[in-house]
């Protein structure tokens, strides 16, 4: 028997126990499941023969999960309540085959746990990742100093301006100076009027570049922005789902660990978001 098969059988048993213990206080329920898990591990470690029969025998000697749960309720003075799932242990055979109704019930619970977590993780991602990109883009789009139009006019008059760039349909202009500085300004006035206003003869005009607003820019923006966003989102979702599964895939967390798993996934998303953000900042 492989280790994977062994863990599947053990998880199946503990999952059924978890279902049966649903009405016990959470602390006691988690304690009991962990006690039984340790018992199985000890007994397995004790046995020189690592066969399926030995494992099933260990579980058989432990008793049916329903019996353990009944004992727990009686010992701890709790009134018995039927388990929430239709897979009552009464209909289960005494050997713990992996395809019993109880096993399916336990697996369904685990799957539901994962499904409940994924929307939360995606929601958080949708908040964190665009925020990260927004911060990065704002940072990269605004390295220049913003100046007033009268300042540009004064600078042009003094001959310090080398080039003025503007985009059709945009009020924004970028002024490049002789010393390599770049400054940004916003003007409603056409550049020619601006330079006339500066009282400069045409031969002294700085180089003026006016670029048309083109549709390829939108595509480039979409590619450079959306593609990494999608890739990053997919990667982060995968990492979070895998992490949550490995932490809470075991039955001890199917019920009680729900909120813990949500918190963990939230923390993971925030951490990954920060990592992605710092990586992007470094790249920019």
């Amino acid at each position, binding site marked *: 028997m492989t280790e994977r098969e062994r863990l599947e059988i053990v998880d199946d048993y503990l999952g059924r126990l978890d279902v049966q213990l649903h009405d016990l206080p959470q602390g006691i329920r988690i304690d*009991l499941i962990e*006690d039984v898990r340790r*018992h199985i591990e000890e007994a397995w*470690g004790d046995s020189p023969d690592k066969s399926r029969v030995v494992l099933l025998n260990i579980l058989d000697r432990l*008793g049916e999960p329903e019996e*353990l749960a009944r004992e*727990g309720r*009686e010992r*701890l003075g709790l009134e018995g309540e039927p388990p929430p799932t239709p897979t009552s242990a009464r209909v289960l055979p005494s050997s713990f085959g992996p395809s019993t109704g109880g096993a399916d019930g336990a697996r369904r619970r685990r799957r539901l746990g994962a499904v409940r977590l994924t929307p939360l993780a995606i929601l958080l991602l949708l908040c964190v990742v665009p925020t990260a990109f927004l911060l990065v883009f704002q940072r990269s789009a605004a390295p220049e100093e913003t100046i007033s139009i009268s300042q540009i006019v004064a600078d042009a008059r003094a001959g310090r301006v080398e080039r003025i760039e503007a985009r059709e349909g945009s009020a924004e202009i970028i002024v490049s100076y002789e010393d390599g500085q770049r400054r940004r300004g916003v003007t409603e006035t056409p550049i020619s009027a601006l330079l006339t206003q500066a009282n400069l003869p045409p031969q002294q005009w700085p180089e003026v570049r006016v670029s048309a607003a083109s549709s390829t820019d939108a595509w480039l923006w979409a590619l450079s922005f959306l593609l990494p966003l999608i890739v990053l989102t997919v990667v982060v979702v995968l990492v979070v789902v895998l992490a949550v599964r490995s932490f809470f895939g075991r039955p001890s967390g199917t019920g009680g660990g729900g909120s813990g798993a949500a918190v963990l996934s939230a923390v993971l998303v925030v951490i990954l978001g920060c990592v992605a953000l710092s990586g992007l900042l470094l790249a920019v």
Partner: protein
Amino acid sequence: MDENAALITQMRKGAVEYCVLALLEGRERYGYELVQALSGVDGMLVSEGTVYPILSRLKRDGLVRAELRESRGGPARKYYRLTPSGDAALAAFKAQWRIFSGAVETILREGARL
């Protein structure tokens, strides 16, 4: 018949709790060790797993204290030991049980002659 079985089950349940305490008298043991000691005595346990709810209850009632400790190469072990009130409960049970079981034994042995 069913009623009879239920009665015996109840008797066993009442006694097992004190047997767990007795196994912890003067020494600590971990869960699996306790189960092995109990199941080594014929007729004490029906299902080994039922020991764990008993330990939960004893812990809740303050009769035992539990401490989880790492073990070499295996799962962590939860060691149980008696608290002073556990000691007292065990002593009281021992005295009562000896009187009671002696009385029952006498009746069973000599019932017809009494």
